[in-house]
């Protein structure tokens, strides 16, 4: 936002539209919308300055359920539409809601460019590793071997890692959370919103109908403590039930390893401290996968930088101060003209 306004008082209920929600009962999207509403209530941007732009998919139904402005567009193109909207009015708070197919299959190119341009919009990727709306085909984030109507013998494509991709695109804010983490999610969203420039948030979302339990190996409550690490800037990367496991960098192999504090002489001082401004660290964290590693959640990377529309309007202002915007009638007469008759 270029204009800072005092936050207004808002409740989750005021952010809820009158439309009947049409996700399957038990869908992770319910949890996410709850978290978004609570984050937005805390952020306090007036509802009339908030816009949700989405593509197509189950996730993309999101805007209908928010009592803000909303645009449910076409498959994969939400980042481009959001860019145009931001160009027209940089003062809007724009959220892009997208699914793994929408964002990384058909929409991969627009995701790349909205991120590298650093357009000040917040991209929320609901990753359920499946095409929900079209009834269950595998997606670019589905693990190899996913059986689906289009891959009855199992998928063979290597999945893309959403956050590694975002980092490779030049994203300056990359974060990750899980649909069920109702405390963590709003925090991440507030950070994304506060970041000036494009923010990219991957949310692991359970599709109960077509890909139930796709992330259970690190989201199940019983094992979560050992399979998730919450990264926080300036804090050591510790995790585990007893918070005694940690991530250490093996400087000779340049690879991460999981160690236990107190074992083999490992102290907390040996544990990597998270630095969200270090892109290489973010890449290393992004690559961690169970079972060898916990999944890194939180803000993996955040780097300040000029956002796109600010730069665009700075040029418009510069143009105005350099060349006078003479009235149309005068513009038409600029350059060579000549008079006939009269």
């Amino acid at each position, binding site marked *: 936002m270029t204009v800072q306004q005092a936050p207004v008082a808002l409740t989750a209920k005021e952010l809820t539209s009158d439309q009947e929600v049409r996700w399957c009962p038990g869908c992770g999207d319910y949890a996410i919308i709850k978290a978004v509403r609570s984050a937005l209530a805390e952020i306090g941007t*007036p509802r009339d300055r908030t816009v949700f732009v989405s593509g197509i998919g189950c996730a993309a139904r999101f805007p209908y359920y928010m009592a803000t402005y909303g*645009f449910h567009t076409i498959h994969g193109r939400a980042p481009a539409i959001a860019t*145009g909207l931001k160009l027209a009015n940089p*003062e809007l708070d724009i959220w892009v809601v997208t699914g793994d197919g929408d964002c990384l299959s058909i929409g991969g190119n627009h995701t790349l460019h909205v991120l590298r341009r650093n357009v000040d919009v917040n991209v929320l990727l609901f990753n359920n590793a499946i095409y929900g709306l079209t009834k269950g085909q595998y997606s670019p984030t589905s693990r190899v071997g996913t059986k689906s109507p289009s891959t009855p013998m199992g998928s063979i494509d290597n999945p893309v890692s959403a956050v590694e991709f975002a980092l490779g695109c030049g994203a300056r804010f990359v974060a990750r959370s899980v649909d069920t983490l109702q405390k963590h999610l709003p925090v991440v969203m507030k950070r994304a919103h506060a970041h000036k420039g494009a923010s990219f948030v991957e949310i692991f979302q359970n599709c109960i109908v077509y890909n139930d339990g796709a992330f259970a190996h690190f989201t199940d409550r019983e094992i979560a403590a050992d399979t998730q690490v919450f990264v926080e800037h300036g804090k050591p990367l510790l995790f585990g039930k007893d918070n005694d496991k940690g991530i250490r960098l093996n400087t000779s192999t340049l690879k991460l390893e999981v160690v236990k504090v107190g074992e083999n002489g490992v102290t907390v001082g040996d544990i990597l401290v998270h630095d969200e401004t270090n892109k290489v660290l973010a890449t290393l964290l992004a690559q961690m996968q169970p079972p060898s590693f916990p999944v890194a959640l939180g803000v993996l990377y955040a780097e300040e930088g000029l956002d796109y529309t600010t730069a665009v309007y700075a040029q*418009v202002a510069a143009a105005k101060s350099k060349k*006078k915007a003479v009235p149309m009638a005068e513009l*038409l*007469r600029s*350059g060579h003209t*000549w008079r006939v008759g009269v």
Partner: protein
Amino acid sequence: MSAVSAELPRHIDRRELESVVIRFAGDSGDGVQITGSQFTDTTALAGNDLATFPDFPAEIRAPAGTTFGVSAFQINFGARSIATAGDAPDVLVAFNPAALKVNLSDIHPGGLIVLDTGTFSARNLEKAGYATNPLEDGTLTKYRTLKIDISKLTLEAVKEMGVSSKEGLRCKNFWTLGLVYWLYGRSRQSTIDWLQRRFASRPEIANANIAALNAGHAFAETAEMPGEISSYVVPPAPLEPGVYRNITGTDAMAWGLLAGTQLAGIKLVFCSYPITPASSLLHALANLKQYDIVTFQAEDEIAAACSAIGASYGGALGITSSSGPGVALKGEAIGLAISTELPLIVVNAQRAGPSTGMPTKTEQSDLYQAVFGRNADSPVAVLAARSPADCFEVGIEAVRIATKYMTPVIVLTDGYIVNAAEPWRIPDMGAYEPFPVQFRTDPEGFHPFLRDPETLARPWVKPGTPEMMHRIGGIEKSFSSGHISYDPENHQKMTDVRAAKIDGIANDIPLQTVEDGTEGGALAVVGWGSTYGPISRAVGNLRAEGEDVSHVHLRHIWPLPRNLGDLLGKFDRVLVPEMNSGQLVTLLRAQYLLPAEGLNQISGKPFKISTIEAAIREQLEK
């Protein structure tokens, strides 16, 4: 060998000429386009009417001396109104053998050819594909020729000017221009002024070029010029009084769109992806940022269309542009704008296809795509500009329709129109009625698919407007609530109302008039777009001979003017010349069940007047 030799038929008639067609041709590096545009400016100042046709090579910078590297610029100017760049040049200025090779067949016998003999080296002849030297093997006997070692004379003229010999040789186009100026009695002053402005930071270059210009002029005037040739006179044309300028289709469109958004009182957001020949519009608007214009080079055509739609959703006017293959990519997004009823302008600078086709060549073959080229029942408004200057009016009209009817408008131009220039009587901006957009701000009884009873347009609401929060999308929505609806009757109603809205535009555009001729008769020649020039001239010529033929030219391709069917019904025959395989003719036949016939040329080149004249005669004899 002396620097010049002339072989001219004796006893040349020194009469005043009514019009002349000159083509400059040379290597891409020879400055042909600059030469042409300088000649154009000077000619306009002299009061002639004129039309031009720049013809770029397909390659960026083909190896020097090759035929595929030849660039050309044709100008037709006259003491009467000029409608086309001319069928066949009266004068060809060929800067090298390749330029001669490529262009010779277009010159009619007796035409004048000005040649730089200094470039007719064995190597250059070979590159041009000449087995023997055309200067010597009789190739040119049918023509009048001026064979001058321009290269050598230019170098001599600039040798004191402090430029390198490479830079010096680059002045030869101005040497030649000086000579041509003399032939047509032109003043050098505006070109001298231009050179001084252009090379303000490198005065030695300006001076060298001016020296060359003067030397060429002096050469023609002095004894070294063959005695038989003197200056022709092309008197000023009887143009409507007013202030004139030259304008390309690109600049006219840029200004028209800007003027339109000013009349509408909204911001212009232009989103495009480069493609020949559409890119120049992006370039032109990128230079107008002082008007609060935002220009955006998107990652591809889909993003360009979508960001324009996003901008329109945001309350600006989103405009996108491309050529055929790029517009093909925008089809799905245009459907979204149709379904959500957002204003959007899509400018298509048509080029020869299919697929990549011939990007630098012109064609009119995207009418089907504009009118029919989307999934589902998805009508939009379609406009076509007839000439470079007409782009200004069409640009304004597109903005008016898009914002008043909340609809995409497709604007068709083509490779010829965007690059060519013509003199334009600058309109009085005060004469344009503003059409300010009324954004809806009143929440009382609001839903986003309410409709204006007259235009059937839905209300336009800027996100950011208090208490007007709403959601729109590409799924079918209820006529009565604006919410998603899968109701069968509602879908019928919405499909009908979308069609009726576009159809209703026909009540808000001028009735079709006859451009030249009568409201009925033996033959109507119906055109659209850039065939305007050759059709109007052909019809004019034949009417002057007393033939019963009239010219009807469409600006509004969809919806068609209300009276068009009746009007055409008053003619015995209808002929539709198009630079495609017959697309408008399909529309007219389907709409009016008229036995309209096509005259179709798909060669990447504008029609010749003579081609249309012949077709008219044939029709009249039927």
